[in-house]
Protein backbone atom coordinates (compact mmCIF):
# COMPACT_ATOMS: atom_id res chain seq x y z
CA UNK A 1 0.00 0.00 0.00
CA UNK A 2 1.50 3.27 -0.96
CA UNK A 3 -1.22 5.70 -0.02
CA UNK A 4 -0.82 7.44 3.32
CA UNK A 5 -3.17 6.62 6.20
CA UNK A 6 -3.56 10.26 7.18
CA UNK A 7 -3.02 13.21 4.94
CA UNK A 8 -3.51 16.85 5.88
CA UNK A 9 -3.21 19.43 3.11
CA UNK A 10 -2.76 23.01 4.29
CA UNK A 11 -5.27 22.57 7.10
CA UNK A 12 -6.44 25.64 8.98
CA UNK A 13 -8.81 25.62 11.92
CA UNK A 14 -10.17 28.99 12.91
CA UNK A 15 -12.31 29.56 15.95
CA UNK A 16 -14.47 32.65 15.87
CA UNK A 17 -14.53 34.17 19.28
CA UNK A 18 -16.96 37.05 19.77
CA UNK A 19 -14.98 39.95 21.19
CA UNK A 20 -17.52 40.49 23.91
CA UNK A 21 -19.11 37.22 24.72
CA UNK A 22 -22.61 37.28 23.28
CA UNK A 23 -24.45 34.31 24.63
CA UNK A 24 -28.05 35.26 24.35
CA UNK A 25 -30.43 36.18 21.62
CA UNK A 26 -31.46 39.33 23.46
CA UNK A 27 -27.91 40.65 23.60
CA UNK A 28 -27.33 39.59 20.03
CA UNK A 29 -30.39 41.49 18.84
CA UNK A 30 -29.32 44.63 20.66
CA UNK A 31 -25.84 44.49 19.22
CA UNK A 32 -27.00 43.60 15.77
CA UNK A 33 -29.20 46.68 15.75
CA UNK A 34 -26.21 48.72 16.84
CA UNK A 35 -24.00 46.94 14.26
CA UNK A 36 -21.61 45.94 16.93
CA UNK A 37 -21.12 42.22 16.58
CA UNK A 38 -17.37 41.90 16.29
CA UNK A 39 -15.29 38.79 16.36
CA UNK A 40 -11.72 37.83 16.97
CA UNK A 41 -10.41 34.94 14.97
CA UNK A 42 -8.29 32.46 16.82
CA UNK A 43 -6.31 30.19 14.56
CA UNK A 44 -5.61 26.89 16.22
CA UNK A 45 -4.02 25.40 13.10
CA UNK A 46 -2.40 27.58 10.46
CA UNK A 47 -1.70 25.59 7.37
CA UNK A 48 -0.62 22.17 8.56
CA UNK A 49 0.42 19.73 5.87
CA UNK A 50 1.62 16.27 6.71
CA UNK A 51 1.38 12.68 5.65
CA UNK A 52 1.47 9.68 7.89
CA UNK A 53 2.04 6.28 6.41
CA UNK A 54 0.14 3.19 7.45
CA UNK A 55 1.88 1.43 10.35
CA UNK A 56 3.83 4.51 11.37
CA UNK A 57 3.87 5.55 15.02
CA UNK A 58 4.16 9.30 15.26
CA UNK A 59 4.54 11.43 18.37
CA UNK A 60 3.14 14.94 18.53
CA UNK A 61 4.89 17.40 20.80
CA UNK A 62 4.56 21.08 21.59
CA UNK A 63 3.57 23.43 24.34
CA UNK A 64 0.06 23.65 25.75
CA UNK A 65 -2.18 25.41 23.27
CA UNK A 66 0.14 24.74 20.35
CA UNK A 67 -2.59 22.90 18.45
CA UNK A 68 -1.79 19.24 19.14
CA UNK A 69 -5.25 18.37 20.41
CA UNK A 70 -6.91 20.34 17.63
CA UNK A 71 -4.87 18.33 15.16
CA UNK A 72 -6.10 15.07 16.67
CA UNK A 73 -9.67 16.37 16.63
CA UNK A 74 -9.45 17.29 12.98
CA UNK A 75 -8.24 13.79 12.18
CA UNK A 76 -10.95 12.27 14.38
CA UNK A 77 -13.69 14.22 12.55
CA UNK A 78 -14.68 16.11 15.70
CA UNK A 79 -13.83 19.44 14.07
CA UNK A 80 -14.20 20.14 10.38
CA UNK A 81 -11.23 22.07 8.95
CA UNK A 82 -11.96 25.73 8.22
CA UNK A 83 -9.88 25.39 5.08
CA UNK A 84 -7.59 22.77 3.64
CA UNK A 85 -8.24 19.09 3.29
CA UNK A 86 -8.22 16.20 5.72
CA UNK A 87 -8.14 12.65 4.46
CA UNK A 88 -8.13 9.61 6.66
CA UNK A 89 -8.15 6.06 5.35
CA UNK A 90 -9.42 3.45 7.73
CA UNK A 91 -11.25 3.19 11.00
CA UNK A 92 -10.16 5.30 13.94
CA UNK A 93 -10.06 4.46 17.62
CA UNK A 94 -9.85 7.73 19.52
CA UNK A 95 -8.23 7.45 22.92
CA UNK A 96 -8.99 11.06 23.66
CA UNK A 97 -10.03 11.93 27.18
CA UNK A 98 -10.69 8.49 28.53
CA UNK A 99 -13.73 8.07 30.67
CA UNK A 100 -15.84 10.57 28.84
CA UNK A 101 -19.52 9.82 29.32
CA UNK A 102 -19.03 7.34 32.13
CA UNK A 103 -22.01 7.48 34.44
CA UNK A 104 -21.51 6.89 38.14
CA UNK A 105 -24.93 5.43 38.82
CA UNK A 106 -24.67 2.80 36.11
CA UNK A 107 -22.87 -0.50 36.60
CA UNK A 108 -19.58 -1.43 34.97
CA UNK A 109 -21.35 -3.60 32.44
CA UNK A 110 -23.86 -0.86 31.56
CA UNK A 111 -21.05 1.63 31.19
CA UNK A 112 -19.14 -0.66 28.86
CA UNK A 113 -22.17 -0.85 26.58
CA UNK A 114 -22.64 2.92 26.72
CA UNK A 115 -18.97 3.62 26.04
CA UNK A 116 -19.02 1.25 23.10
CA UNK A 117 -22.10 2.99 21.74
CA UNK A 118 -20.39 6.36 22.09
CA UNK A 119 -17.53 5.01 20.01
CA UNK A 120 -19.96 4.02 17.31
CA UNK A 121 -20.26 0.28 17.80
CA UNK A 122 -23.43 -1.68 17.24
CA UNK A 123 -25.25 -3.71 19.84
CA UNK A 124 -24.12 -6.96 18.29
CA UNK A 125 -20.47 -5.94 18.27
CA UNK A 126 -20.65 -4.85 21.90
CA UNK A 127 -22.24 -8.10 23.02
CA UNK A 128 -19.38 -10.01 21.46
CA UNK A 129 -16.78 -7.77 23.04
CA UNK A 130 -18.22 -7.37 26.52
CA UNK A 131 -16.55 -10.34 28.22
CA UNK A 132 -13.16 -9.68 26.68
CA UNK A 133 -13.30 -6.00 27.68
CA UNK A 134 -14.17 -6.77 31.28
CA UNK A 135 -11.45 -9.42 31.48
CA UNK A 136 -8.74 -7.17 30.12
CA UNK A 137 -9.73 -4.46 32.59
CA UNK A 138 -9.63 -7.08 35.38
CA UNK A 139 -13.04 -6.01 36.65
CA UNK A 140 -14.85 -9.38 36.59
CA UNK A 141 -15.78 -9.08 40.25
CA UNK A 142 -17.17 -5.58 39.93
CA UNK A 143 -19.18 -5.60 36.70
CA UNK A 144 -22.50 -5.27 38.45
CA UNK A 145 -21.50 -2.56 40.89
CA UNK A 146 -22.25 1.06 40.05
CA UNK A 147 -19.03 2.66 38.96
CA UNK A 148 -19.28 5.48 41.45
CA UNK A 149 -17.81 2.85 43.76
CA UNK A 150 -14.79 2.34 41.46
CA UNK A 151 -11.37 3.86 42.00
CA UNK A 152 -9.91 6.22 39.40
CA UNK A 153 -7.60 3.47 38.22
CA UNK A 154 -10.47 1.03 37.77
CA UNK A 155 -12.38 3.55 35.70
CA UNK A 156 -9.33 4.25 33.57
CA UNK A 157 -8.87 0.51 32.98
CA UNK A 158 -12.50 0.17 31.97
CA UNK A 159 -12.36 3.09 29.56
CA UNK A 160 -9.04 2.08 28.03
CA UNK A 161 -10.21 -1.48 27.62
CA UNK A 162 -13.38 -0.44 25.76
CA UNK A 163 -11.52 1.97 23.53
CA UNK A 164 -8.73 -0.38 22.54
CA UNK A 165 -10.55 -3.67 22.28
CA UNK A 166 -11.13 -2.94 18.64
CA UNK A 167 -9.43 -3.56 15.41
CA UNK A 168 -8.90 0.00 14.26
CA UNK A 169 -6.54 1.01 11.50
CA UNK A 170 -5.59 4.20 13.29
CA UNK A 171 -5.17 4.84 16.99
CA UNK A 172 -5.23 8.39 18.32
CA UNK A 173 -3.80 8.75 21.82
CA UNK A 174 -4.02 12.02 23.74
CA UNK A 175 -2.32 11.93 27.11
CA UNK A 176 -4.42 8.91 27.87
CA UNK A 177 -1.63 7.17 29.68
CA UNK A 178 -1.21 9.72 32.41
CA UNK A 179 -3.72 7.98 34.64
CA UNK A 180 -3.55 4.71 36.45
CA UNK A 181 -0.76 2.97 38.27
CA UNK A 182 2.48 1.74 36.75
CA UNK A 183 1.17 -1.71 36.02
CA UNK A 184 -1.76 -0.23 34.14
CA UNK A 185 0.46 2.16 32.22
CA UNK A 186 2.65 -0.77 31.25
CA UNK A 187 -0.40 -2.70 30.08
CA UNK A 188 -1.42 0.26 27.97
CA UNK A 189 2.01 0.58 26.45
CA UNK A 190 2.02 -3.15 25.73
CA UNK A 191 -1.28 -2.79 23.98
CA UNK A 192 0.04 0.10 21.90
CA UNK A 193 3.08 -2.01 21.07
CA UNK A 194 0.73 -4.77 19.92
CA UNK A 195 -1.04 -2.26 17.69
CA UNK A 196 2.25 -1.13 16.27
CA UNK A 197 3.52 -4.58 15.51
CA UNK A 198 0.18 -5.39 13.90
CA UNK A 199 0.91 -2.62 11.44
CA UNK A 200 -1.52 -0.03 12.76
CA UNK A 201 -1.01 3.68 12.51
CA UNK A 202 -0.60 5.40 15.87
CA UNK A 203 -0.73 9.14 16.45
CA UNK A 204 0.38 9.91 19.94
CA UNK A 205 0.33 13.18 21.91
CA UNK A 206 2.45 13.31 25.03
CA UNK A 207 4.49 15.65 27.14
CA UNK A 208 6.65 12.76 28.24
CA UNK A 209 9.50 13.04 25.76
CA UNK A 210 11.04 9.79 26.93
CA UNK A 211 7.81 7.99 26.07
CA UNK A 212 7.86 9.56 22.60
CA UNK A 213 11.48 8.58 21.98
CA UNK A 214 10.83 5.07 23.16
CA UNK A 215 7.63 4.47 21.19
CA UNK A 216 7.89 6.53 18.05
CA UNK A 217 10.41 6.64 15.29
CA UNK A 218 9.04 9.93 14.03
CA UNK A 219 8.02 13.02 15.96
CA UNK A 220 6.28 16.21 14.89
CA UNK A 221 6.76 19.44 16.82
CA UNK A 222 3.89 21.87 16.60
CA UNK A 223 4.16 25.49 17.62
CA UNK A 224 1.40 28.09 17.32
CA UNK A 225 -0.56 25.98 14.90
CA UNK A 226 2.33 25.20 12.56
CA UNK A 227 4.61 22.24 12.08
CA UNK A 228 8.06 23.49 13.00
CA UNK A 229 9.96 20.22 12.99
CA UNK A 230 9.08 16.85 11.54
CA UNK A 231 11.55 14.03 11.59
CA UNK A 232 13.48 11.51 13.60
CA UNK A 233 12.02 11.42 17.11
CA UNK A 234 15.39 11.47 18.89
CA UNK A 235 16.54 14.69 17.27
CA UNK A 236 13.13 16.44 17.29
CA UNK A 237 12.60 15.75 20.99
CA UNK A 238 16.17 16.81 21.74
CA UNK A 239 15.66 20.10 19.92
CA UNK A 240 12.32 20.64 21.59
CA UNK A 241 13.75 19.93 25.00
CA UNK A 242 16.66 22.30 24.44
CA UNK A 243 14.34 25.03 23.17
CA UNK A 244 11.80 24.71 25.94
CA UNK A 245 14.33 24.90 28.78
CA UNK A 246 16.58 27.40 27.04
CA UNK A 247 14.68 30.60 27.63
CA UNK A 248 11.84 32.29 29.41
CA UNK A 249 8.57 31.90 27.49
CA UNK A 250 8.61 35.63 26.74
CA UNK A 251 11.89 35.48 24.89
CA UNK A 252 11.14 32.44 22.81
CA UNK A 253 12.34 32.64 19.23
CA UNK A 254 9.53 32.76 16.69
CA UNK A 255 8.84 29.40 15.09
CA UNK A 256 10.02 30.58 11.67
CA UNK A 257 13.54 30.83 13.00
CA UNK A 258 13.37 27.39 14.44
CA UNK A 259 12.16 25.85 11.23
CA UNK A 260 14.97 27.61 9.41
CA UNK A 261 17.38 25.73 11.65
CA UNK A 262 15.90 22.37 10.87
CA UNK A 263 17.31 20.34 7.99
Amino acid sequence: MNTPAIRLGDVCVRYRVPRERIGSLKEYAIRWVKRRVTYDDFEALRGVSLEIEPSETVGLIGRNGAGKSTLLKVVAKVIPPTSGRVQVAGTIAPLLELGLGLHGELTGRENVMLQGALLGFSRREMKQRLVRIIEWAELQDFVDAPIRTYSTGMMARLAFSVATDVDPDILLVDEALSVGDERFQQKCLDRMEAFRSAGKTVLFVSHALAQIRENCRRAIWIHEGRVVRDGDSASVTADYHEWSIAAEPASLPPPEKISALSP
Partner: protein
Amino acid sequence: MSARAITPTEGVRVYDSARRGSRILEEARALWKYRFLVSELVIRDIKVRYKRSILGVFWTMLAPLLNMIALTLVFSALLKQQIRNYPVYFMTGSIFWTFFSQTTSSAASQTQDSNEIAKRIYIPRSVFVASAIGVGLVNLVLSIVPLILILGATGYPLYATWWFLPISVFILMLFSAGVGFLLFTLASRFTDIREMYLVFIQTWFFLTPIVYHPSIVPAKFRLALWLNPMFYLVQTFRRPIYDGVLPSPTLLAASVAIAVLVFATGWVYFSHRVDEFAFRT
Protein backbone atom coordinates in the same frame (compact mmCIF):
# COMPACT_ATOMS: atom_id res chain seq x y z
CA MET B 1 5.86 16.91 0.34
CA SER B 2 4.26 15.13 -2.56
CA ALA B 3 0.51 15.51 -2.70
CA ARG B 4 -0.58 11.93 -2.94
CA ALA B 5 -4.32 11.83 -2.62
CA ILE B 6 -5.84 9.02 -0.63
CA THR B 7 -7.56 6.79 -3.09
CA PRO B 8 -10.21 4.53 -1.66
CA THR B 9 -9.06 0.94 -1.65
CA GLU B 10 -11.52 -1.83 -1.22
CA GLY B 11 -12.83 -2.34 2.29
CA VAL B 12 -11.17 0.76 3.69
CA ARG B 13 -13.37 3.59 4.88
CA VAL B 14 -12.11 6.97 3.84
CA TYR B 15 -12.95 10.25 5.51
CA ASP B 16 -12.25 13.15 3.20
CA SER B 17 -13.19 16.60 4.45
CA ALA B 18 -13.22 17.89 0.88
CA ARG B 19 -15.64 15.26 -0.37
CA ARG B 20 -18.54 15.06 1.96
CA GLY B 21 -21.55 15.45 -0.29
CA SER B 22 -24.96 16.42 0.97
CA ARG B 23 -25.06 17.15 4.69
CA ILE B 24 -28.73 16.15 4.79
CA LEU B 25 -27.88 12.61 3.73
CA GLU B 26 -24.55 12.45 5.54
CA GLU B 27 -26.18 13.26 8.88
CA ALA B 28 -29.00 10.80 8.24
CA ARG B 29 -26.51 8.02 7.55
CA ALA B 30 -24.49 8.90 10.64
CA LEU B 31 -27.62 8.84 12.81
CA TRP B 32 -28.50 5.41 11.46
CA LYS B 33 -25.00 4.12 12.17
CA TYR B 34 -25.21 5.39 15.76
CA ARG B 35 -28.70 4.01 16.43
CA PHE B 36 -27.34 1.77 19.20
CA LEU B 37 -26.12 4.91 20.97
CA VAL B 38 -29.63 6.38 20.75
CA SER B 39 -31.08 3.35 22.50
CA GLU B 40 -28.27 3.32 25.07
CA LEU B 41 -28.91 6.99 25.86
CA VAL B 42 -32.62 6.32 26.29
CA ILE B 43 -31.88 3.36 28.57
CA ARG B 44 -29.37 5.42 30.56
CA ASP B 45 -31.85 8.23 31.03
CA ILE B 46 -34.55 5.93 32.32
CA LYS B 47 -32.27 3.85 34.52
CA VAL B 48 -30.57 6.85 36.07
CA ARG B 49 -33.84 8.64 36.70
CA TYR B 50 -35.14 5.87 38.92
CA LYS B 51 -31.96 4.64 40.58
CA ARG B 52 -32.24 4.98 44.34
CA SER B 53 -35.96 5.77 44.24
CA ILE B 54 -38.61 3.61 45.88
CA LEU B 55 -41.46 3.96 43.42
CA GLY B 56 -39.08 3.80 40.49
CA VAL B 57 -40.72 3.72 37.13
CA PHE B 58 -44.15 4.19 38.68
CA TRP B 59 -43.43 7.89 39.01
CA THR B 60 -43.93 8.26 35.29
CA MET B 61 -47.38 6.77 35.61
CA LEU B 62 -48.26 8.59 38.80
CA ALA B 63 -47.50 12.07 37.53
CA PRO B 64 -50.23 12.25 34.86
CA LEU B 65 -52.67 10.66 37.28
CA LEU B 66 -52.09 13.31 39.96
CA ASN B 67 -52.19 16.03 37.33
CA MET B 68 -55.46 14.72 36.05
CA ILE B 69 -57.05 14.67 39.49
CA ALA B 70 -55.98 18.24 40.22
CA LEU B 71 -57.16 19.58 36.87
CA THR B 72 -60.40 17.65 36.95
CA LEU B 73 -61.21 19.29 40.25
CA VAL B 74 -60.32 22.73 38.96
CA PHE B 75 -61.95 22.58 35.57
CA SER B 76 -65.04 20.54 36.22
CA ALA B 77 -65.93 22.19 39.52
CA LEU B 78 -64.86 25.78 38.96
CA LEU B 79 -65.38 26.30 35.25
CA LYS B 80 -68.39 24.02 35.06
CA GLN B 81 -67.37 22.88 31.62
CA GLN B 82 -69.72 20.59 29.82
CA ILE B 83 -67.30 17.91 28.76
CA ARG B 84 -68.32 14.28 28.80
CA ASN B 85 -65.96 12.37 31.10
CA TYR B 86 -63.47 15.15 31.71
CA PRO B 87 -60.76 12.85 33.20
CA VAL B 88 -60.45 10.91 29.95
CA TYR B 89 -60.65 14.08 27.86
CA PHE B 90 -57.95 15.76 29.87
CA MET B 91 -55.64 12.77 30.11
CA THR B 92 -55.52 12.14 26.36
CA GLY B 93 -54.64 15.79 25.84
CA SER B 94 -52.15 15.75 28.68
CA ILE B 95 -50.31 12.67 27.40
CA PHE B 96 -50.13 14.34 24.01
CA TRP B 97 -48.88 17.66 25.33
CA THR B 98 -46.43 16.17 27.82
CA PHE B 99 -44.72 14.28 25.02
CA PHE B 100 -44.39 17.41 22.94
CA SER B 101 -43.21 19.75 25.69
CA GLN B 102 -40.83 17.23 27.31
CA THR B 103 -39.11 16.17 24.13
CA THR B 104 -38.72 19.64 22.65
CA SER B 105 -37.48 21.34 25.81
CA SER B 106 -35.15 18.41 26.43
CA ALA B 107 -33.78 18.82 22.88
CA ALA B 108 -33.18 22.50 23.62
CA SER B 109 -31.11 21.69 26.70
CA GLN B 110 -29.25 18.79 25.05
CA THR B 111 -27.16 21.28 23.07
CA GLN B 112 -25.23 22.29 26.16
CA ASP B 113 -25.38 18.96 27.96
CA SER B 114 -24.12 16.93 25.03
CA ASN B 115 -21.35 19.34 24.17
CA GLU B 116 -19.06 17.98 26.88
CA ILE B 117 -18.89 14.71 24.97
CA ALA B 118 -19.45 15.83 21.41
CA LYS B 119 -16.67 18.37 21.38
CA ARG B 120 -14.17 15.67 22.33
CA ILE B 121 -15.07 12.64 20.27
CA TYR B 122 -16.99 12.33 17.05
CA ILE B 123 -20.67 11.68 17.59
CA PRO B 124 -23.41 12.74 15.19
CA ARG B 125 -25.22 15.32 17.31
CA SER B 126 -28.60 14.27 16.01
CA VAL B 127 -28.45 11.28 18.39
CA PHE B 128 -29.19 13.64 21.27
CA VAL B 129 -32.42 14.90 19.73
CA ALA B 130 -33.33 11.36 18.72
CA SER B 131 -32.77 10.12 22.27
CA ALA B 132 -34.94 12.94 23.66
CA ILE B 133 -37.71 11.68 21.38
CA GLY B 134 -37.01 8.11 22.50
CA VAL B 135 -37.29 9.00 26.18
CA GLY B 136 -40.56 10.81 25.45
CA LEU B 137 -41.86 7.74 23.68
CA VAL B 138 -41.11 5.49 26.64
CA ASN B 139 -42.87 7.95 28.95
CA LEU B 140 -45.83 8.12 26.61
CA VAL B 141 -46.20 4.35 26.57
CA LEU B 142 -45.96 4.26 30.37
CA SER B 143 -48.64 6.93 30.76
CA ILE B 144 -51.06 4.89 28.65
CA VAL B 145 -51.33 2.61 31.70
CA PRO B 146 -53.01 5.18 33.99
CA LEU B 147 -55.20 6.28 31.08
CA ILE B 148 -56.52 2.75 30.70
CA LEU B 149 -57.01 2.55 34.47
CA ILE B 150 -59.14 5.69 34.30
CA LEU B 151 -61.11 4.29 31.37
CA GLY B 152 -61.86 1.26 33.51
CA ALA B 153 -62.62 3.24 36.65
CA THR B 154 -65.04 5.61 34.94
CA GLY B 155 -66.61 2.96 32.76
CA TYR B 156 -65.49 4.63 29.54
CA PRO B 157 -65.40 2.42 26.43
CA LEU B 158 -62.08 1.28 24.97
CA TYR B 159 -62.88 2.08 21.34
CA ALA B 160 -61.73 -0.12 18.50
CA THR B 161 -60.25 3.01 16.93
CA TRP B 162 -57.38 2.83 19.45
CA TRP B 163 -55.51 0.98 16.71
CA PHE B 164 -54.89 4.39 15.16
CA LEU B 165 -52.79 5.51 18.14
CA PRO B 166 -49.39 4.42 16.74
CA ILE B 167 -50.06 6.50 13.63
CA SER B 168 -51.00 9.65 15.54
CA VAL B 169 -48.02 9.12 17.85
CA PHE B 170 -45.78 8.87 14.82
CA ILE B 171 -47.15 12.15 13.44
CA LEU B 172 -46.57 13.77 16.83
CA MET B 173 -43.02 12.35 16.94
CA LEU B 174 -42.20 13.77 13.55
CA PHE B 175 -43.49 17.22 14.50
CA SER B 176 -41.71 17.20 17.87
CA ALA B 177 -38.45 16.07 16.28
CA GLY B 178 -38.66 18.92 13.79
CA VAL B 179 -39.20 21.49 16.54
CA GLY B 180 -36.50 19.72 18.58
CA PHE B 181 -33.91 20.02 15.81
CA LEU B 182 -34.73 23.70 15.33
CA LEU B 183 -34.32 24.41 19.04
CA PHE B 184 -31.23 22.23 19.38
CA THR B 185 -29.53 24.11 16.57
CA LEU B 186 -30.63 27.57 17.69
CA ALA B 187 -29.47 26.85 21.24
CA SER B 188 -25.91 26.42 20.00
CA ARG B 189 -25.89 30.11 19.09
CA PHE B 190 -28.08 31.52 21.83
CA THR B 191 -28.06 30.05 25.29
CA ASP B 192 -31.30 31.74 26.32
CA ILE B 193 -33.35 29.93 23.68
CA ARG B 194 -34.33 27.28 26.17
CA GLU B 195 -35.64 29.75 28.75
CA MET B 196 -37.52 31.69 26.10
CA TYR B 197 -39.00 28.48 24.79
CA LEU B 198 -40.19 27.40 28.24
CA VAL B 199 -42.13 30.65 28.59
CA PHE B 200 -43.43 30.35 25.05
CA ILE B 201 -44.61 26.76 25.44
CA GLN B 202 -46.51 27.68 28.61
CA THR B 203 -48.55 30.19 26.62
CA TRP B 204 -48.88 27.75 23.74
CA PHE B 205 -50.36 25.20 26.11
CA PHE B 206 -53.23 27.50 26.99
CA LEU B 207 -53.78 28.44 23.36
CA THR B 208 -54.26 24.76 22.49
CA PRO B 209 -57.44 22.94 23.50
CA ILE B 210 -55.88 20.56 26.00
CA VAL B 211 -57.75 21.41 29.20
CA TYR B 212 -60.76 22.96 27.48
CA HIS B 213 -62.95 22.04 24.56
CA PRO B 214 -62.41 23.92 21.28
CA SER B 215 -66.12 24.69 21.14
CA ILE B 216 -65.80 27.18 24.00
CA VAL B 217 -63.42 29.33 21.96
CA PRO B 218 -65.35 32.49 20.94
CA ALA B 219 -65.83 33.02 17.22
CA LYS B 220 -63.50 36.02 17.05
CA PHE B 221 -60.57 33.89 18.36
CA ARG B 222 -61.24 30.98 16.03
CA LEU B 223 -58.54 32.14 13.64
CA ALA B 224 -55.91 31.77 16.38
CA LEU B 225 -57.07 28.21 16.83
CA TRP B 226 -56.86 27.41 13.13
CA LEU B 227 -53.39 28.88 12.85
CA ASN B 228 -52.16 26.75 15.72
CA PRO B 229 -50.54 23.57 14.33
CA MET B 230 -51.00 21.81 17.65
CA PHE B 231 -54.77 22.17 17.28
CA TYR B 232 -54.77 19.74 14.34
CA LEU B 233 -52.32 17.38 15.96
CA VAL B 234 -54.19 17.13 19.25
CA GLN B 235 -57.47 16.52 17.43
CA THR B 236 -55.84 13.74 15.42
CA PHE B 237 -54.49 12.25 18.62
CA ARG B 238 -57.67 12.57 20.64
CA ARG B 239 -60.43 11.54 18.26
CA PRO B 240 -59.72 7.78 18.11
CA ILE B 241 -59.37 7.51 21.89
CA TYR B 242 -61.95 9.97 23.17
CA ASP B 243 -64.56 10.13 20.41
CA GLY B 244 -64.10 6.63 19.05
CA VAL B 245 -63.85 7.85 15.47
CA LEU B 246 -60.92 8.13 13.11
CA PRO B 247 -59.73 11.64 12.21
CA SER B 248 -61.38 12.92 9.04
CA PRO B 249 -59.25 12.76 5.87
CA THR B 250 -58.85 16.56 5.84
CA LEU B 251 -57.77 16.65 9.48
CA LEU B 252 -55.35 13.80 8.93
CA ALA B 253 -53.96 15.41 5.79
CA ALA B 254 -53.45 18.71 7.62
CA SER B 255 -51.65 16.97 10.51
CA VAL B 256 -49.38 14.94 8.25
CA ALA B 257 -48.56 17.98 6.13
CA ILE B 258 -47.68 20.06 9.20
CA ALA B 259 -45.56 17.30 10.74
CA VAL B 260 -43.65 16.53 7.54
CA LEU B 261 -43.03 20.20 6.79
CA VAL B 262 -41.80 21.00 10.30
CA PHE B 263 -39.62 17.89 10.43
CA ALA B 264 -38.06 18.65 7.05
CA THR B 265 -37.40 22.25 8.06
CA GLY B 266 -35.80 21.19 11.34
CA TRP B 267 -33.63 18.52 9.75
CA VAL B 268 -32.44 20.72 6.89
CA TYR B 269 -31.63 23.60 9.23
CA PHE B 270 -29.82 21.28 11.65
CA SER B 271 -27.77 19.48 9.03
CA HIS B 272 -26.68 22.71 7.36
CA ARG B 273 -25.48 24.14 10.65
CA VAL B 274 -23.94 20.95 11.92
CA ASP B 275 -20.34 22.00 11.27
CA GLU B 276 -20.74 25.04 13.48
CA PHE B 277 -21.47 23.13 16.65
CA ALA B 278 -17.82 22.31 17.28
CA PHE B 279 -16.95 26.00 17.28
CA ARG B 280 -19.67 27.22 19.60
CA THR B 281 -20.45 27.04 23.31
